[in-house]
């Protein structure tokens, strides 16, 4: 297969993985987004970070962008498959309410990372996003670039089972895919992450992450202790439920107690449950029959947190007045 360069002649060097991240972050910062750091609890997707899942609730406008390492234990391939990862990186952009020209802004961001739109085939194909466990869904597209899905674009409609108003526009870039495309490599592990400016030495994705893929695949599929995982699940669940139980007392709390009530802590516990569930699933420890039941349990937590977050926000708003 002939390379990209030979096909189109002289071409400037493609962005490294980290330059791709810098460029997109700079692009969105210039358009009013606050740059947040990745969330530090395991999540399966950038949407599950509280910076999306909780900030889309309520009326307050939001413009935020952050990179989010996302763990999906069942997708691990021991580092042997050049296209699949246990942990990949999403760049998540949330705009509430979505600006009228949000699609045009998105296309400009592609130009910013070196994609000449006239040289490529771009399609917005229907793809509606849904996270049943979070009572969350939206409508939108997968953005296809020369047949490659590079972005999930969603107009968030509901979250925690609640209708959103205003809704949020959510743009999720798959950074490994885009970097692989830009650099024209057939394996994710060959992506150049960074180049040392003085020596010109290339640091690859594989150098940075292969060991992690190998070991976490082995952990998720072969080592994770099923008994302990079930215990973790129960412990996290019980603590989350105990916190949610106290939500009933919001009405009788004084403002300071209410403000300090750890809904955010409850959310982290719920996310822990979700991750442990994913591990159990990868480990093959959840039968199809059990699956529905466990998912319903986690849904109770996640949706309960979303409702508590909304209630807390509303109560504080009223209290301030």
């Amino acid at each position, binding site marked *: 297969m002939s390379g990209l360069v030979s096909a*189109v002649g002289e071409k400037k060097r493609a962005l490294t993985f980290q330059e791709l991240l810098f460029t997109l972050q700079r692009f969105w910062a210039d358009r009013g987004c606050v740059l947040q750091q990745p969330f530090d609890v395991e999540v399966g997707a950038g949407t599950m970070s509280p910076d999306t899942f909780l900030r889309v609730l309520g009326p307050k406008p939001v413009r935020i962008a952050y990179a989010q390492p996302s763990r999906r234990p069942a997708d691990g391939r021991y580092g042997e498959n050049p296209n*699949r990862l246990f942990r990949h990186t999403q760049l998540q952009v949330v705009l509430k309410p979505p600006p009228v020209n949000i699609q045009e802004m998105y296309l400009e961001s592609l130009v910013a990372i070196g994609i000449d739109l006239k040289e490529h085939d771009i399609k917005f194909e229907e793809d509606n996003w849904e996270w049943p466990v979070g009572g969350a869904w939206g409508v939108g597209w997968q953005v296809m670039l020369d*047949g490659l899905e590079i972005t999930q674009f969603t107009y968030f409609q509901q979250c925690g089972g609640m209708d959103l108003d205003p809704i949020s526009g959510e743009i999720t870039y798959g950074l490994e895919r885009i970097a692989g495309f830009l650099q024209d490599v057939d394996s994710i592990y060959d992506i150049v992450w960074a180049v040392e400016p003085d020596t010109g030495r290339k640091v690859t994705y594989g150098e940075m992450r292969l060991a992690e893929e190998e070991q976490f695949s082995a952990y998720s599929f072969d080592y994770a202790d099923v008994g302990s995982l079930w215990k973790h699940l129960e412990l996290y669940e019980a603590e989350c439920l105990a916190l949610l139980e106290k939500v009933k007392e919001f009405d009788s709390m004084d403002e300071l107690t209410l403000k300090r009530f750890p809904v955010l802590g409850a959310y982290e516990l719920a996310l822990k449950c979700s991750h442990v569930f994913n591990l159990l699933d990868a480990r093959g420890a959840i039968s199809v029959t059990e699956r529905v039941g466990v998912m319903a349990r986690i849904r109770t937590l996640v949706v309960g947190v979303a409702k508590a977050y909304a209630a807390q926000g509303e109560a504080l708003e009223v209290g301030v007045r």
Partner: protein
Amino acid sequence: MADFLFEIGLEEVPARMIAGAQAELQQRVVKMLERERLVLPSAAIKSFATPRRLAVWISQVEEQQNPLMVETLGPSTKVAFKDGQPTPAAISFANKLGVEVASLRKVPTSKGEYLQAVSFTAARKASEVIAAELPKELAGIYWAKNMYWRPGKPERFVRPVRWMMAMLGAEVVPVSFGGYEAGAVTYGHRVLFGDAAIEVGSPGEYEDALLSGFVIADVEVRRQRIRKALDKVTRAGSPEGAGLRWREDHGLVDKLTQLTEWPSVLMGGFEKEYLALPEEVLVTVMRDHQSYFAVEDKEGKLAPHFLAVLNTETDEAGMAVIRHGNERVLRARFNDARFFWEFDQRVPLVERVKLLENVTFQKDLGSYAAKSERVRELCHRLVDLAAKRGFAVDSNALLDAAALAKTDLTTELVKEFTELQGEVGGLYAKAQGLGEKTADAIYDHYRPESMEAAIARTSEGQLLAIADKADTIAGMFRLGLEPTGSKDPFALRRAANGVVKTLAESEVPLLLSEISKAAESTDEKMIAFFRERLEFYLREAKGQAYDVVKAVLAAGSEDVRDAVARTEAVTAVRGSEDFAAVSAAFKRMKNILAQAKEKGIAAGSNVDAALLTEPTEKALAERSAELANRVSTLRSEKNYKTALEQIATLRPQVDAFFDAVMVMAPDAEVRANRLALLDRVLGDFSGIADFSEIVVAG
């Protein structure tokens, strides 16, 4: 009069929804204009659609409403005039409607004479009416899934509205919807034309204006352009003598027509080594995951090429870049599929049977392991019945297939490509040396997936397909989960359609009632359900007339293939005059018998020749007895058409009988005997179809 054009610009509308919305918008706009007396039914209409717009153009729209004459009844003449002078009642009635008292008419009614005013509704300007009415029509368009986008949620639509254009001649009609007011500009292709507005001088210029913006607004033109490009690119990319062809796929052509505004086609390739993977897997990856057309060689074998439809146009160098990108993605997809294929081989199907215990079929019907066991037992019973009737089937292969049919649900390949369930099991069975008959039966057992799809190819596959579906239906019926109205969450109608179609189009010698019974359905409802599906099959798949189907099923609905043959025979002869006359006469006989029964007049238990007095009734009795024997023989030979033609020859005797004989004779014995004769004739000749159900024209 002027042409009217309306366009609504949207963010990319899902491809599957465009055709329906295009038709609905056209229909709504035309109906609205007709309702508002702004257009004649003869107006020329054209509609347009791309992913980013829906539009409709209508010729010769009135600039003002045609006035409508309204007749209003007022007070009675008695009250309205006193001494020949109008009273206040008459004057206020005329004033209310804005007419002169002198113009009021006197009209007779059932209650006496009343005043009537003739007035005309105000003729509003077209642009005013359209601006008021069109937004309501837009809001009413059906979308399978829609969304809010503006704060305060003022409206829902499929995707955010981005502009509107509404023009009556050169004049803008101020339609407002979704936060926009319509103007006189449209927008072109995102990339090839950019964000600049395109001015449209008048409705007639719309299509050309868009062409200059790299948008083909006419759906048919786009479709043809894609088809031609597929042909051309395939020919150009075909090595000397290879005779490559793209694989026809109407659904995919539709989808790509609705995904593009300015389509072009490129041919890409993949490494020959991937051809070692089953064709089914390769085609599914290309078609369902990448929207590519597969390419085949002269022999119909898959060639290592694909065709991608792009929503852009570029030169050779640009095409090379896009080709390279698409090939890269496809290679990654094929690699994944190969990984799954190889991974799955580590655990053979036979070892996967126990894994099915963990896969729920339905919570009250247990796991797929339980279902497989039930289907296997059912196959056993069906094969016993069928084999006795000389149906050739390898029962060991069938029973093995039944045990393994669902094991592919535990494979990675089916988890990734769910649409390949069954086929993957069949391919694995073959690869694992389980025998061709077993493999083919597994491969085919979900067939037919629709009324258009083919049935299973082998007798083992046919029996397994029937058993699998019958088990699902019987199980759900036992739980009271039969379909109701539009609700059919377990797709039981499709399953029953599959059973009927398989019986109709194979040699499987089983009756619907036998299948129900073998599936341990204690429910009469299941038999009625099958009968309803048979009726559906005859009407929808076979295109048979409603009355013919009803007539045929009244004479038996157990044997599907027999019902099909009888239906076809009735349809073949129903056009003949004699047959129509005999059908009408049979209906008359049935009515006479029914009326007699209602009045408590009994027919004789059999026909007594001594009581036949009139020559015409004697003739009918003799001729029908003769014919009955012949028809009975023909019926048992399933020579239905000839049998029906024979029945039609009874016409002279039937006609003469009704001309000369009064059935309800005053003498009770004669009457009972004549009724017995009619009863016998009906009984003898209704074995193929109940002709009294046939609707005779005139």
